[in-house]
């Protein structure tokens, strides 16, 4: 590619003898750095444990050249998936070449340069099309019971004329005529008038979303008032609707000076207005920055960790979003009232609250497929500005914000409280997060449906959902119980502060030394897969036995057998199995084979020593005794990374 500065004009730029420093200890490994058109690849030269690190250019948030050291020129790369790598490149010249090539590569100026447009998973057009057809929002509204006698599909936005950032298909109350819709849209920021996003069939209560009204200090709009009236009237269970302004009151007040603001309860009949107090994108961006800064500190003390966690405000924000979603879910499911949610533009906080609220109310959204539908509906189709928020094209740094990450984290916090409620495990959430930034698939490109259509994404790129479904077995939650959904259709999480935890697997995904060395999830998932295979083996053996005329009692399956056979393990390199490098996946497969053989002969023992990940003292950083003293007599200072480190002898 023309953006790669290379001495010999080859398509791949290779630097040897590069050192990769561990982020939290003094350890380092040496290897070769390859710069390709799409990835930066580090291959460790050590023959036995040669690890490979693949970093997609789109994942790189910043590249920094640090001041020259004796061993070479350090290059610090921070990624949007929270990976931080620190290379030391022997020659300054090489370092500079890589640095400037990366700078150019990670600032694509047009959509065509994004990986999604060159990524080719070897599928034909039909498979590609099928991938895009997996999620059908019309079918989703049908599932909710819409259209019905109170709600209908409107074609007012067919040409994106009323609202550019909304999808074409929108659902509104039967009684809301076109003039009312158009009038209301003119009174709402960016034309985002109130539309249906979720319908709670049991109580006929609706969750609607919009942007702030252009009320200023006193302006009003009869059509908009009619619109809210129409939403209210479509629900016979309740005489009032809630209007949730998800912003802090102060922010809403300040907006009035700019001719925006919030609904005046005097002008709208039968509304109950409520501020929720979720902070804006700038506060959230700052908060994450602070969080990452603290967590990236070497030799972090417990005090600094907890103080840093508090000062970042991150968990406070997560709790605020959760509180809002719970308020929404209660209003709908307990009171049977319809709720209209908005913030300023209605594409950040509104998306968080509507999506999370729906997830609390509807068990379908807690399945793998349902969660995809939810994201497709409340985030992608309603115009969460993924391109801006996730920094896809040469960006405005003020537009970047971890709004979607927060939503994923809220879901994770819920999985911690309700381990059996979700069909997916946290790796599913982390993988989605990975791809929101990878620009490898078309789903999250651009800021709105309209823009996506202009880019012809469905013809030119692939859908993430098909890819994720093909590796579904990696993301399953082994203890998921469909019957839990029956007994708990509505989740009622506790929002006591102590229930909110730091999501280590997300923010330290690549810092392997920090994680449990044995994963219960992986272990139980493997067992569950093995159970399925064994059930098959039992059946096969029984059939064989029957040939000998032996009758056997039918096996009582304790878990319902799966309908589908599962696809093979993923082959993708960086985005493959969670937490595992390709090597380990291979290793694990080998282990499984051993287990299988051992099972045939000796059922009790699965043989062999189990490997424990990261099983080394030095990886953990409680002190590397730098110098081992054998026969050496000279006095020395032994530095221990943790604790009081000096001792003289």
């Amino acid at each position: 590619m023309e953006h790669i500065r290379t001495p010999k004009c080859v398509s791949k730029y290779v630097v040897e003898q590069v050192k990769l420093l561990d982020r939290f200890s003094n350890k380092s490994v040496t290897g070769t750095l390859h710069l390709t058109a799409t990835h930066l690849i580090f291959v460790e030269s050590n023959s036995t444990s040669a690890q490979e690190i693949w970093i997609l250019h789109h994942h790189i948030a910043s590249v920094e050249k640090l001041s020259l050291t004796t061993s070479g020129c350090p290059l610090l790369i921070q990624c949007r998936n929270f990976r931080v790598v620190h290379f030391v490149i022997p020659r300054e010249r090489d370092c500079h070449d890589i640095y400037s090539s990366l700078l150019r590569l990670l600032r694509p100026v047009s959509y065509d340069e994004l990986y999604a447009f060159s990524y080719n998973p070897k599928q034909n057009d039909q498979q590609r099309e099928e991938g895009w057809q997996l999620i059908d929002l019309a079918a989703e509204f049908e599932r909710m019971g819409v259209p019905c006698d109170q709600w209908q599909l409107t074609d007012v936005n067919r040409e994106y004329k009323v609202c550019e950032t909304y999808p074409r298909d929108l659902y509104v109350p039967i009684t809301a005529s076109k003039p009312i819709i158009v009038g209301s849209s003119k009174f709402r920021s960016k034309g985002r008038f109130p539309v249906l996003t979720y319908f709670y069939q049991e109580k006929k209560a609706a969750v609607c979303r919009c942007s702030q009204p252009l009320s200023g200090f006193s302006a009003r709009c009869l059509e908009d008032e009619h619109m809210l009236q129409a939403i209210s009237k479509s629900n016979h269970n309740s005489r009032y609707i809630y209007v949730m302004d998800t912003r802090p009151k102060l922010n809403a007040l300040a907006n009035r000076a700019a001719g925006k603001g919030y609904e005046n309860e005097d002008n709208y009949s039968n509304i109950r207005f409520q501020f929720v107090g979720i902070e804006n994108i700038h506060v959230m961006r700052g908060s994450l920055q602070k969080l990452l800064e603290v967590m990236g500190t070497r030799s972090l003390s417990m005090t600094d960790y907890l103080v840093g966690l508090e000062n970042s405000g991150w968990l406070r924000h997560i709790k605020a979003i959760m509180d809002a979603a719970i308020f929404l879910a209660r209003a709908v499911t307990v009171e049977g009232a319809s709720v209209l949610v908005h913030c300023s533009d209605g594409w950040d906080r509104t998306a968080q609250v509507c999506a999370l609220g729906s997830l609390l109310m509807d068990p379908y959204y807690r399945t793998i497929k349902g969660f995809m539908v939810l994201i497709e509906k409340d985030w992608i189709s309603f115009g969460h500005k993924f391109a801006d928020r996730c920094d896809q094209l040469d960006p405005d740094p003020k537009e970047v914000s971890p709004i979607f990450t927060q939503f994923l984290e809220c879901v994770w916090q819920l999985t911690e409280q309700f381990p059996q409620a979700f069909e997916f495990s946290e790796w599913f959430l982390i993988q989605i997060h990975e791809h929101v930034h990878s620009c490898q698939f078309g789903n999250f490109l651009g800021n709105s449906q309209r823009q996506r259509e202009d880019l012809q994404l469905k013809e030119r790129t692939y859908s993430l959902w098909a890819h994720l479904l093909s590796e579904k077995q990696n993301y399953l939650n082994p203890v998921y119980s469909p019957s839990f959904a029956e007994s708990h259709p509505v989740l009622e999480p506790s929002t006591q502060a102590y229930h909110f935890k730091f999501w280590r697997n997300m923010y330290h995904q690549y810092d392997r030394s920090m994680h449990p060395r044995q994963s219960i999830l992986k272990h139980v998932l493997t067992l569950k897969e093995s159970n399925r295979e064994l059930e098959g083996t039992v059946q096969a053996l029984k059939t064989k036995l029957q040939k000998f005329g032996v009758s056997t009692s039918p096996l009582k399956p304790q878990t319902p057998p799966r309908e589908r056979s599962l696809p093979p393990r993923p082959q993708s390199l960086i985005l493959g199995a969670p937490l595992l490098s390709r090597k380990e996946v291979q290793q694990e497969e080998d282990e499984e084979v051993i287990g299988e053989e051992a099972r045939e002969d000796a059922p009790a023992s699965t043989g062999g020593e189990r490997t424990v990940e990261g099983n080394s003292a030095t990886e953990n950083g409680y002190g590397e005794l730098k110098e081992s003293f054998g026969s050496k007599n000279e006095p020395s200072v032994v530095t221990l990374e943790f604790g009081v480190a000096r001792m003289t002898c």
Partner: protein
Amino acid sequence: MASAADLHSELFLNALTQVSSRFIGSLGTIIVKCKDLRVIQLDIPGMEECLNIASSIEALSTLDSVSLMYPFFYRPLFEVIEDGWQLFVPEEAFKDLESMTDEWRLSEVNKDFSVCPSYPSLLTVPKDIDDESLCKAASFRHGGRFPVLSYYHKKNGMVMMRAAQPLTGTNGRRCKEDEKLINATLCAGKRGYIIDTRTIAVAQQAKARGGGFEQEANYPQWRRIHKAIERSNVLQESLIKLVEACNDQSHSMDRWLSKLEASNWQSHVKEILTTACLAAQCIDREGASVLVHGTEGTDSTLQVTSLAQIILDPACRTIRGFEALIEREWLQAGHPFQQRCAQSAYSNGKPRSEAPVFLLFLDCVWQILRQFPCSFQFNENFLIMLFEHTYASQFGTFLGNSVGERVKLQLSQKTVSLWSWVNRPQEMERFLNPLYEPNNLVIWPSVAPQSLLLWEGVFLRWNRSTKCLDEAYQEMVHIIEYNKELQNKVNSLRRQLAQLETEDNPLQTP
């Protein structure tokens, strides 16, 4: 009286730590705070009745005399098959050691507990050191706790020893026998580490009170490392603050985090684990022997030596092995359980010697268990059960402060051992970890703050519903058991088939 406590569930009176009562009209309310951190409210109509009950509870829960405590009156409703008092005797442990090395001997120097009142009667010491030298070394160590063997690392023959601080005082006293004793544990030309659990400043201060630390000049073969594990009263303060924070449901996120931080509990966990890892690292990675001590050698020292063994020795991760470890490194090693575990977090006054030293140890074990969930034969319930029984128990195991005291109280004759009860298969079932797969590796936990969690099973136990978590756990157990069942089925079918095939074969061949 007992019936009042039966209202909710069976509560042992010695499990209560604070009783308070108040009145609204004639309705009295008694608030009972338990040592397992539970808080119970009893509404009792009638002022007089209420006051009577409150004062009875108060009186009965603050008994002065050990011999009036519940274990002395408890009669087991089960048959004692295996007497826990006889399970872990030093002679047995020494037999194991003998099979690995002949460098050590079992000394009876402390037979009548006169050399060191807090040590047991039998002690493992280097073979070449005679009892007379031991007595001299004992006079040089705080409380007579001279260096003794704590752990022998089979893999490389390195050892971990523990002691109390040396009594160097301000003028730098020395003791040849003490030097000889610990040098006897080093191989020729090798050197060892002394891990002092106190900061250098604290250790310096100790000199003024007759204590101190090993001077480099007198112990040239040893390198001293100072760590900063806090002492008892600080730990007790920490526990009180932590429990307060956990019990207040009205906290905002910021307040919760700042209270959690202010309690310092997690910092203590991190510091203790780090020190234990360091000791293990010296032994396993550096191939050096280690001597651990703090001031008295009965608290932080034991935390470090016992945790290091869990890291290094797979045997300690089994149930029996863990019981043996507690017996060896805590009970026999003279951790003053009765002083440390009298009141728990809700104490009215501030008993000076109260401290959650053992609870911190259990917390650290839980942290390692979290990080290596397949490496332990026991589960979290086992650790919680131990926590409860150290503070209040119908069993005599944790009564008294030393082996000497226990002998005087005749606990093994007059009370039932906790192990007699726990090791019954019916009870054991609750404590088994379904994920356990023995591994012989050294397990190195991460001590990064991000890797250490609040032990919710203890501290949030009464404040949150665990129904969903328990059900998920059951489902996991079910998957594991079903897997075993299926494997057995496959094997029996295979055998059946193989048998039929061999029987069949002769018929097929003419």
